[in-house]
């Protein structure tokens, strides 16, 4: 996977990464993935899933079906107990810590509760993430302005999150996820706290990003959102994939 935010990655590291990453048509491939938590119950069982590059996929299912766990496996917050998780051809279950950090720069993640930092402004919330991965202040400023324009929040850059509506806060979270121009965007119930109109606004941003070749995976149980976008859905129940369909 490209890591657009790390243009100064050492040549040796780039060569090693290129050698390890097998060429693949799939952005995501899960092969016989199992995951269980400490109490012993399996949250995910025998998960086989492929998501192509540039695809828009919904993961759906009732609460407790394992949607959040599945997404956590995709950005390395959780490690599968069994099976393989490939992101852009790289098996993330075998990555070292530093390699995982570099891989995450190519994955944007959006949460239902936004996870914005309350003591930082809109601009700082996004720029902070850029600075944290070593992007220069000038380049970070340029990227943040560009992404704020994309989510139509440029004029609110100096406000603190508490002065924004839920939809606007979610758009800031999306801007933060997109600022690295990631090839993969993962969203966990991104419209869970929004009214239908705002939910559709958020989906419009996702559709626009997807149109620009970013693979988008959204976990949701909101039927109206799925119908609004009208793309492939993967239904999870009791930790297993029950149905894959358009």
């Amino acid at each position, binding site marked *: 996977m490209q890591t657009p935010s790390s243009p100064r990655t050492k040549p040796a590291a780039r060569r090693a990464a290129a050698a390890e990453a097998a060429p693949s048509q799939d952005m995501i491939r899960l092969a016989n993935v199992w995951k269980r938590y400490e109490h012993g119950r399996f949250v995910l069982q025998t998960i086989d899933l492929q998501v192509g590059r540039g695809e828009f996929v919904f993961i759906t299912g009732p609460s407790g079906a394992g949607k959040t766990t599945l997404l956590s496996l995709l950005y390395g917050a959780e490690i599968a107990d069994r099976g393989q998780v490939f992101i852009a051809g790289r098996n993330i279950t075998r990555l070292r810590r530093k390699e995982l950090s570099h891989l995450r*720069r190519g994955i944007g993640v959006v949460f239902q509760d936004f996870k914005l930092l309350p003591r930082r402004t809109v601009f700082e919330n996004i720029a902070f993430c850029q*600075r*944290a*991965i070593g992007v220069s202040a000038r380049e970070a400023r340029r990227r943040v302005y560009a992404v704020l324009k994309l989510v139509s929040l440029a004029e609110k850059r100096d406000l603190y999150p508490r002065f924004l509506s839920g939809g606007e806060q979610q758009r800031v979270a999306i801007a933060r996820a997109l600022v690295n121009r990631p090839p993969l965007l993962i969203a966990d119930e991104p419209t869970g706290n929004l009214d239908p109109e705002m939910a559709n606004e958020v989906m419009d941003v996702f559709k626009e990003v997807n149109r620009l070749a970013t693979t988008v995976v959204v976990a949701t149980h909101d039927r109206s959102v799925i119908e609004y976008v009208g793309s492939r859905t993967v239904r999870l129940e009791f930790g297993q994939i029950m149905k894959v369909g358009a």
Partner: protein
Amino acid sequence: MNRWLQSFPYFFGEALLDIRENRAVAALTIVTTTISLIFFGALWIVQVNVSDLIGNWRERFQVEVFLKNKITSTEKEAIKSAVLRSESVERVAERTSDEALKKFREQLGPNAGVLDGLGEAFLPSSYRIILRPGWRTMANIESLMARVRVMPGVERLRNDLTWLRRLEGAIQLIRLAVWTISALLGLGVLFIIANTIRLTLFARRDDIAIMHLVGATDGFIRTPYITEGVLCGACGGIAAYASLMLLYYAFFLPVLSGFSAEGFIVRPGGWHLGVLLVGVGASLGFVGSAATVSHYLRKQRE
């Protein structure tokens, strides 16, 4: 390295932000570090000055060889050339019995009359052996005295070896006390800085989670907090140095000026002490914060 340097303004800015946001805790840490380093600096000054005092005294140290009244000139020459052959000896000065009596009379001053009638040569003649600088150690002095004592014509030897031994023992004890107390104070500072960083990490747990999420490496996450620890420690060092200088020039110097006339001068340590205190403070800050943030990140991964 280049990338790290480019990011240094970010690390520094984040560290300052943390200090500003937790200013009460940071101030408490700096004050505690300052107090500990003042004690450390004061002990260091005491140790250095006592060492200097003993060093000065040792530089004035000499061995006096008293000669027998009936010594022959051949024996006298033999003693002198044997002493001068030793590489630790700078020079040998002879004091005849007349010169010894004259000096004694001078020392007695108005009471010199008590010496009248005792004869002209009742005091023995002697050699004063002046040792080379750097050779005035206990071992050299003892070795020289052992050789001279058995030579024919030597009545007895006089030196302040016992006092030198006691003083060297005392300075060893002072050194041990300084290191022990410094180690205990250092542990205290380490613990306080570690605790401050732990509180900062707790306040910043959301930031850290997001940093992980966007692909920040552990090194990048760690550095602002280590910078904060180093800053707190270094500030404590600067404040401790300033306080010690203030105490010295405002209080001790006026009091000690009376002693200075007798050649007793206490040196405050100068810039060496400043560098030492800032260095020790910064190092403690580095170790305390690095250990805490590494432990925190390890726990986060588990």
